[in-house]
């Protein structure tokens, strides 16, 4: 952990918005978050990546000051989340995993209610509402009831709602889970713009592509512990190779082929149930080496390493498991 602490939990500076040391959350006997350290710097996009049950949401709820930590230290915006919850939350935006919109009200009323929760005057709310609905491309639906909106539109409204208080930190818990690919890309695009505007993002995800698209730095959580951390590029350099060769063989030949592939001298070989992954600097070179061994894969794919490969390397499991 010492190397990790160096990159993720440095000396706290004035730009550290969140600082966690040994942060722990237990529910009875179960430890959801098991002593994690991290710092969040102003203006960055920071990700918690991990499978379901890794402790992502518990961590987010502690940062959102709606879940008192069981142990360790947590400082948010220089304040104590237990004593100063309201003052901290006034400066946070939260996009929860499940939509918590008031579906009986209209799009605009949802923003009005939420703005009032922050004590904003009506004219400020209506000015921001116009801007935010424009930002999430919901202006035309402003007076519609929320209930019949699609999942993607509801997500965008939730994002607009989370921005009503112009937060310094935006917390997003699995912002695109359950959305279709097109809706996901719209959300990513909006989040990317927010990042460009200088909003600090903290997000959890179990999508590798999401983490790669959005995060400057991330930690891989597994079983409540930080398995690794750094920028996506650093993680790939440290834990994987530039390229990956994915091979699929006839189920009957799968095992045999895996044994023979040792001769390719890949840096690492992962034998999955349906595929074999070879971690190598150059995929095309490796593929001809495979063919020279007399192996004929049904399909072959040369691709760049992704965070998925790192997760596999670190935990021995795939993210969807």
């Amino acid at each position, binding site marked *: 952990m010492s190397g990790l602490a160096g990159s993720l939990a440095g000396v706290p500076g004035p730009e550290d918005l969140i600082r966690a040391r040994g942060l722990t959350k237990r529910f009875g006997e179960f430890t959801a978050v098991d002593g994690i350290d991290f710092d969040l710097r102003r203006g960055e996009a920071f990700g918690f990546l991990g499978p379901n049950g890794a402790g992502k949401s518990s961590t987010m709820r502690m940062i959102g000051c709606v879940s008192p*930590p069981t142990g360790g230290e947590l400082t948010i915006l220089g304040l104590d989340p237990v004593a100063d919850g309201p003052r901290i939350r006034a400066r946070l935006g939260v996009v929860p995993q499940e939509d918590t919109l008031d579906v009986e009200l209209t799009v605009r009323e949802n923003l009005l209610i939420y703005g009032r929760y922050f004590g904003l005057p009506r004219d400020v709310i209506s000015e921001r509402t116009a801007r935010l609905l424009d930002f999430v491309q919901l202006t035309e639906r402003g007076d519609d009831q929320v209930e019949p909106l699609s999942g993607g539109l509801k997500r965008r409204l939730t994002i607009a709602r989370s921005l009503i208080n112009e937060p310094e930190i935006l917390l997003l818990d699995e912002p695109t889970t359950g959305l279709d690919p097109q809706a996901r890309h719209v959300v990513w695009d909006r989040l990317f713009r927010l990042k460009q505007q200088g909003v600090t993002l903290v997000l959890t995800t179990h999508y590798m592509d999401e983490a790669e698209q959005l995060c400057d730095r991330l930690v891989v959580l597994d079983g409540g512990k930080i398995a690794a951390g750094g920028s996506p590029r650093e993680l790939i350099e440290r834990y994987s190779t530039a390229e990956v060769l994915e091979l699929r063989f006839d189920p009957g030949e799968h095992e045999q082929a895996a044994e023979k592939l040792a001769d390719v001298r890949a840096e690492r070989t992962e034998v999955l149930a349906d595929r074999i992954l070879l971690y190598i600097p150059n995929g095309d070179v490796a593929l001809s080496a495979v063919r020279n061994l007399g192996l004929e894969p049904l399909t072959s794919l040369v691709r760049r390493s992704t965070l998925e490969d790192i997760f596999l390397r670190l935990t021995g499991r795939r993210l969807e498991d």
Partner: protein
Amino acid sequence: MAPQAPAAPHAQVARAAAVHASRWAFAVREFRFWLTNYRRTWRGSIYSSVLNPLLYLGSIGVGLGTLVNKHGDARLGGVSYLVFLAPGLLAAAAMETGIGESTYPVLASVKWLKTYHAAVASPLRPSDLFHGHLLFIIVRLAMNCAIFLGAMAAFGAVRSPWVLAALPVAMLTGLAFAAPIEAWAITLNKDTSFAMIFRFGMIPLFLFSGTFFPVSQLPGWAQPIAYATPLWHGVVLCRALSLGTASIGGMLAHVSYLTALTIAGIIVGNRTYRRRLYV
């Protein structure tokens, strides 16, 4: 938690004062949420608020009352059945409003719509949500009880100008139900227990707490049970004010009982709200 430098005494006082001021302001923010929400449904609820007293006062007060009155009014305290019944129905209507507002809307907020989870992500705390909703229930009680009083007056079922004081008393009766029930409702995950409350709580209280006949008509063993129920205290208070027979001592005892129940509900609710929403 994060170790903090001990705050200077005046800073602590300032923080305590700020927390106190924000407690009220935050509850009002949640109260305004409920008002906004109510704008959608008020029409339907007003119909039942008006129809309920008209139906009961008309059918039982006037209709059944003409039969009852033939047997004399000695046991009713020398007044007609309508005059006897109306303040009891007022207290019962307050109970019904209090229970109705503190059950399904609470479970909907925490479980079905999850709007409470959205609200606690803002500066509001769980207790602010609780207090804000109680403020809204107070407004609903004021509306329904005022409409009921108006109907009573229209039926000529009022004997004393003191009946105006029955408005806050009836509201307190409703609150004595709402606060404890809301404190319990926030802990639930299903609405099945609500049906039990209605069937085995509200309806027996409605029938046997002195609304329709004096509790002295109950068998001796059952009378203490009636005295323990909050509705009986509300009925006795409203009736004494409506008939102009209230005594200060008796009033104080009944009001204290209802106030104690309300405060107990608020104290417990502050804890149950926090436990449910800060996991």
